[in-house]
């Protein structure tokens, strides 16, 4: 199974930054109704304008959960502008795996939720 590289399975079984923030500055939830994924992202912005904490929760497949886990690692300490500039290519290079068309949606859902969570911060 090339798609399930060891690192993807590792992030799926032991996701980083999974859970909730008590007082997030922004949050958002999206569903992928085709396969039954649900992802919530919560984000806290520090005094320096950078991400001080980011957490995700919900249910999803290995690809979407690993993508969320890796993505939250990546954006810790980044500014909102830097997060809004992230593209699908950035997610693919984190996952480094062959994705069929139906799995691309799973991989990209966390980024979409994260950027909506960033937009919801005030």
């Amino acid at each position, binding site marked *: *199974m090339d*798609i*399930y590289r060891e690192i993807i*399975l590792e992030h*799926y*079984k032991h996701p980083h930054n999974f859970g909730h923030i008590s007082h997030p500055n922004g949050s958002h939830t999206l569903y992928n*109704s*085709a*396969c*039954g*994924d*649900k992802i919530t992202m919560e984000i806290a912005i520090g005094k320096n304008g950078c991400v001080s904490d980011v957490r995700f929760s919900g*249910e*999803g*497949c*290995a*690809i979407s*959960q690993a993508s969320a886990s890796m993505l939250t690692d990546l954006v810790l300490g980044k500014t909102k502008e830097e997060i809004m500039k992230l593209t699908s290519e950035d997610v693919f290079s984190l996952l480094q795996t062959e994705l069929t068309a139906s*799995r691309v949606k*799973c991989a990209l859902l966390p980024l979409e939720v994260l950027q909506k969570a960033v937009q919801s911060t005030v």
Partner: protein
Amino acid sequence: MDVQKIQKDFPVLKRQINGKPIIYLDSTATSLKPGAVIEAINGYYNFYTANVFRGIYTMSEEATAAYEGARAKVASFIHASPSEIIFTKNASESLNLLAYTVIPMVVKKNDTVVTTIMEHHSNFVPWQQLVPKYGGKMRVWDITKDFVLDEKKLSSLVDSTTKIVTLTAVSNVLGTIVPVKKLTAQIKKIAPQCLVFVDGAQAVPHMPVDVMDLGVDALAFSGHKMLGPTGIGVLWVKKQILETMPPFLFGGDMISEVHVEETKFNALPHKFEAGTPYIEGAIGLGAAVSYLEHIGMDAVRNHEKELVMYALGKLSSMSGVTIYGPPDPEIHGGVIAFRLDGIHPHDVAQVLDEENICIRVGYHCAMPLHEALGVGATCRASFYVYNTKSDVDALILGIKKVQKLFG
């Protein structure tokens, strides 16, 4: 029933992907097509391509005869009259036709329409959206923990305000076979004016269905789930009701006279088939019906019952597998929904695909049911005439592989 011989009738089963055969366990989504159906469609393209009705030449008369012949075959298949058979695009369109034409006729302020929690979206959303527009209210029939309709609830769901009960004959997720005949009798006893509509998309392809015997008022189903092509569906409505229904779509063929000031509509069933129909689709469906009748619908049902019994036995003895559906094969159609502990269904399907095992995962167009079950998504394996116990064995092996990978 000679499954090995049947498998030879399905050209796609000769295909190999990455040197391995295809284990097709997704007939609930769409069935494979036998050569006889493909040839029937090709026959229309190769020998008598012409529009139906009013063509005063040989090919058009042949096309009309083939199209109407298909209608007669479908009618006889469900013990109906050809004039009650409307060709549509699919079961969804059939149910929309019903909802759009019948709700304005019968639903008044504070009337109720009953559907069930285990409906496919196509028999849920049209009612949910349209009934309130006419002042009516929806009531949703729950299931028990045994995955069957809670029959004790019937007397509180159906009363003198109830104008329509619309329900599936077989759940496309749980596989539950609904006792439609018995329930219809009970419903009509409480509310004699109440119409009973049936989503037969998962019943007509898999078991004998006799609309006269069921005592229902309408039945919708799709051609592509019963060995026919996609794009052709059927709506049967009892003649006394069909005669009172206004047209759904206007246009060619559905009229008998058009004047600047007024239009008179065509006779049944043509009043409900505006425009050039899907001629080759109907002809393909007719060939599919002939193919199924040749096997015999009792044999089809018995074959699937055997496979379900075998698969339920195997799956329920595995650890980490949860089955969503009745354990009794007598009331369980050829579809099994399940989840593997700690493994998302999407990942299950992806790993099974490595072995060319085709299952479906997600909500299966039944989100209200999944919410009621309290689960995100499920895996679904389904069987038809070309499946064997060795397909079930392959599925079980595949599941063990998935569990090992994610264990």
